[in-house]
């Protein structure tokens, strides 16, 4: 089950041209059509219902950010009375901006580093024979089997000993390390499928091993890099447990370096004291937008990347 799954066929799914089947219409066309019709109405009903269940809450949340506190507490179904966008500005200045920036700073380093180190390891494991190769490979891939909770306590003290609690570099290194299993697994199977001929030609032309990797093999692996890259962006952007353990101010003078997910939860928990729900909802809306954009632009790669993440 190690082969990464191919991308789902594009929109429309099954894509069998209807004409093909027409000639082979089963024995009792009348019965079948009516069965198909009722089932179709029935099933379509459920499909629509679930789509509504997905979209409605999200839309409601976005709309709610335009309401006032009193309106939010009063009735869930009311329409916002005024469409002012300053709530987004307020949310941004109330911390969302900083949380956003912290997440970005971490990801700008952690994702490329994950991709680089993961590809390097996957490459030598996939294309070079050396004693212990399989062992190292399983060592890398096996890490995905264990729940992250198992490591949390010692991990905290490890990062503390390195003096990296509540620092960007600490979180970056931890993200890279925990993204290694899937990245190595995915890129390993990708490098295996690349043709050897191109590599040999490069070596014959006098390229060193590392040059062959950076200038020949890595560019050829672009589609794989894209899929696994998106997977890592999503995974690290959405990470909550690791930062909530590692990114707490250690002393009162320590600056708050919450990432976005942590910050949102922080905002939510503050609602107990000072109610400014529109700000919280606006914050969530702001946090959702980049995900929506990434998802809609790379929808097929996202689905393919996440799907193969599961099929290992």
């Amino acid at each position: 089950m190690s082969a990464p799954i191919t991308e789902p066929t594009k929109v429309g799914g099954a894509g069998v041209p209807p004409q093909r089947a027409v000639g082979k219409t089963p024995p009792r066309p009348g019965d079948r059509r009516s069965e198909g019709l009722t089932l179709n109405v029935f099933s379509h009903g459920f499909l629509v219902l679930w789509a509504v269940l997905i979209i409605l809450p999200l839309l409601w949340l976005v709309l709610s950010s335009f309401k006032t506190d009193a309106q939010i507490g009063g009735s869930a179904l009311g329409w916002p009375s005024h469409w002012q966008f300053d709530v987004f500005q307020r949310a941004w200045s109330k911390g969302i901006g900083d949380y956003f920036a912290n997440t970005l700073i971490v990801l700008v380093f952690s994702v490329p580093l994950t991709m680089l180190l993961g590809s390097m390891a996957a490459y030598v494991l996939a294309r070079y024979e050396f004693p212990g190769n399989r062992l190292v490979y399983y060592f890398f891939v096996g890490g995905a089997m264990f729940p992250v909770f198992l490591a949390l306590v010692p991990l905290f003290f490890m990062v503390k000993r390195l003096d990296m609690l509540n620092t960007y570099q600490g979180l970056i290194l931890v993200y890279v390390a925990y993204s290694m299993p899937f990245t190595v697994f995915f890129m390993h199977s990708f490098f295996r499928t690349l043709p050897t001929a191109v590599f040999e030609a490069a070596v014959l032309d006098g390229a060193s091993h590392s040059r062959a990797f950076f200038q020949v093999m890595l560019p050829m692996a672009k589609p794989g890099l894209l899929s696994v890259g998106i997977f890592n962006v999503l995974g690290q952007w959405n990470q909550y447990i690791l930062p909530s353990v590692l990114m707490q101010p250690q002393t009162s003078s320590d600056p708050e370096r919450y990432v976005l997910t942590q910050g949102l939860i922080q905002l939510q928990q503050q609602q107990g004291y000072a109610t400014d729900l529109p700000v919280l909802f606006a914050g969530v809306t702001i946090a959702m937008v980049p995900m929506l954009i990434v998802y809609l632009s790379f929808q097929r790669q996202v689905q393919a990347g996440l799907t193969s993440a599961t099929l290992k």
Partner: protein
Amino acid sequence: MRKGQYRFVAGFLLAPLALYLIFVIWPYVQTIGYSFTDWKGQSQTFSFVGLDNYKALFQDDVFMGAIWHNILFLVFIPVITILLALFFAFMVNAGGRGRAGGVQGVAGSGFYKIVYFFPQVLSLAIVAVLFGALYRSDSGGLLNGILIKLGLVDADNPIEWMNEPHLVLWCLMAVVVWHGVGFYLVLFSAAMQSVPRDIYEAALLDGASRTHTFFRVTLPLLWDTVQTAWVYLGIIAMDMFVLVSTMTQGTGYGGGPDHHSEVMANVMMRNFLYYGKSGYACAMGVIMLLLTLVLSVVTLRATRRERIEF
């Protein structure tokens, strides 16, 4: 292999392997070691206490209750999610008009796939805030708002979703199912699409109905994928930390009302970061690991079928 190659391989493996060992493997190993100590986490002095932590665990009613809740999640989350996802996947891929031979998706199946999958790219933190608002215990919550509008709930006495001991676990489950169905729909779709069309057409020529086709043809061919989904949903059911710690009441990482929504992960975090009982928390981590391993092995064994080649 020539000498230069060894140096190259070693050079490429050094940094990734070092990071991985320091931050992933070594902590895993340490957890097991620390679980036999009375380590408080503050100092490096601690003593070996053998199985005391594990014995204490079995006396710890909160943790035992938490295991029970995880088991409930373990039973219901995979079943509900997989059934819904299979149903939707079949509709999207083979639910089209009978005229097309029953092997075509319903109209707009691409749209459904895109919409259903979207929650999966949202972080659980966002989902937690969203459902926190949905489950509000006054008429400002979407659920109560709708129920009041429909006249099913008294406006002066709305349902306290997350504060009702017998409701809270189901509310949490609903969130997980909402979040996950789209993902498994896509997973099953991919598997369905790799099934050769001829098999469906042959079944149809033999006069099989769509229900028949699903149970006799589609499901058996998808079994491997369903099994994988089961293991993954099981791992999710063993976790649940983000939702419980953010959506439920309780001192130090939620778990309320009155311990009715405790799960192993949040009890562990409370003991570690709130009470400073690191060694004890490590023992909980080990129990979680053991249960996860048992779960995987049992699932893979119990669902083992003869593999169908196509």
